[in-house]
């Protein structure tokens, strides 16, 4: 009887260890007003549940730059900001897709594969100038349309959510 309890106890501890993310890591707390909140299937969080990013934290991530024409600007412009792939690596995203939500509660689903296939940028700047909320900031998801013309269609335009404020990894 006792022996059995011990076995169960050991197993429980082992299983609990398996269930807990192996590389679970605490992210630094944002020092200024957070602009992006990531929830869902992520291993690295700020408070065990959400990963919060302020502008400085986003700037500290590996940056990408895309010069492309878009339906929202006249002529080609340069978008820059953290690479989507770097951001989701940072939070240890394990899901298949994300639900990106804008400040006006508009949401769109994006497959995580997109960020492996294309150097998608979570643009915070356009032509070197920070995007204000009024200018579709603080984050504007941008695909390299000119570089990968197969993305120049309604499906990918829909995924380019602006005023991005939170993400749920699913």
């Amino acid at each position, binding site marked *: 009887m006792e022996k059995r309890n011990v076995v169960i106890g050991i197993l429980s501890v082992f299983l609990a260890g398996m269930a807990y993310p192996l590389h679970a890591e605490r992210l630094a707390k944002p020092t200024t*007003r*957070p602009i992006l909140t990531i929830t869902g299937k992520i291993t690295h969080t700020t408070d065990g549940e959400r990963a919060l990013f302020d502008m400085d934290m986003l700037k500290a991530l590996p940056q990408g730059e895309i010069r492309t024409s878009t339906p929202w600007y006249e002529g080609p412009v340069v978008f820059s900001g953290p690479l989507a792939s770097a951001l989701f690596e940072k939070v240890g995203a394990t899901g298949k897709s994300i639900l990106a939500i804008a*400040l*006006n509660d508009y949401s769109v689903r994006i497959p995580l594969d997109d960020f492996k296939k294309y150097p998608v940028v979570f643009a915070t700047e356009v032509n070197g100038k920070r995007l*204000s909320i*009024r*200018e*579709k900031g603080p984050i504007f998801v941008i695909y390299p349309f000119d570089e990968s013309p197969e993305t120049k269609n309604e499906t990918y335009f829909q995924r380019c959510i602006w*005023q991005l404020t939170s993400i749920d990894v699913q």
Partner: protein
Amino acid sequence: MMKFFGQKQQWGHQPYPRIFWWGTIILLIAASGLVYLIVSSLIFLQEKNFEPFKANENEIWAAYQVQAEYLKLKETLIVELNNPVEWSEISVRYEVLLSRTDLFKVGILHISIIQNSEAWQLLQQVTKTIEGLEPQMEQAAQGNRRSISLIVEKFDSLEPKINRFVRSVNEFDADKLVKNRELLKDYFNQVKLFLASLFIAIAALIGLLLWLLRLMATEIKERKQAENQLQQINEELISANKELKDTQSQLIQSTKLASIGELATGIAHELNQPLTYIRNSAQTVMMSGVEELDLEEVQETLELVELGTERMMLIINHLRSFARQTDTEFQSVDVHEIIENSLILLNEQLKLRNIQLEKKYSPSVPRIEGNPHQLEQVFINMLSNARDALDGKKEACITIQTDNGQQDNDAQAVVVSFIDNGCGIDPNHLEKIFDPFFSTKEEGKGTGLGLSISYGIIQEHRGTINVFSGDQGTTFEIVLPMEGKKNSAFI
């Protein structure tokens, strides 16, 4: 053949079974239905992306977004008035609201909103007021409660305007929606009209094609009929020709017999002469007593008798073979032999009438392909004509001449000429001498067929007869090709 033709005719009356026509009609209706279905589906799909609808949808959505963001900002302000938070949401919501009003300043939304002047003016007033609140907004975001309550107060007067703006956009767009629906309906009607005319055109085209096919079938049938008729006519012609040919050979035989009749006097003479020797010899022997018979004399007499009977037999045999219905086959013949044969029956007559006969046979004349009996008939005819032309003439003479010659087509030929020094042929008659039943001889003396038949015979030998006639006499020149025809086309 006739049965097959009969079937064809039936086919011509009803080229296709009734089911074919019904099948075609049903197929056409089904095809047009399918086309209509496809096109209307395409239009339906198109409608979803119909540009005016899309713009409308965007416009109403954007107007609603302005209202929604305004309400969110107001709520945030009221919440924070009572419960200050660590990071104020006020400036975020304020900027989102402004980004929403900004959307109407550019692009398709701008083009759309300026058509509705009421909504555009309201929006401009609202935007101006909101933009004017920026300093207070900054203070409010930093937790200045006085600024917050000031903004909330301002917002109370703003709210009816925003509501009116949204209503205006909705109402205007509803009108536009109706108009667009009308537009789409017109478009649909046009498409329907187009499809209907397309269907009619296709139906007409197919009808035309079927009609042409039918026409072609009829024409083919008619052509077949015509061909058949032609063939029938041809067959009739061939049989008529054969009949004619038969008649001609009968005619040849008849004229041959007729010429024998004409020759009868001559032949009688011919036979009379040897008969006279025989009779004389017999009488001489009879009148002399048996004792007086000189054996040598008897021997001589019998030799004469034998000679006479031999000559008679020759004449009679030849007469028999000449009169016999002869076949029409060609063989290798010697013209000189044929001339001599024809003279057997005529020799005595010419002598009786004191007509000199001169033979100018060329030894180099080759044998030719021909029918000996028919050629003999021609030669007898030529000689008889010459004999008649020399009737009563002093120093009358007939020359028979043979030569090597050429035909008009340069083929090697044998030329047999019968030349008399008689009265010649009247130039007016010259053209008609070969016509059947043309004769200048008195009734009962000629058939009028001699030259006509001769002409036919020589033609069958692919030869020609030339006539030269003048005061000095007449020359009939018969040109016979060395290689006569092997087989007649009509036999």
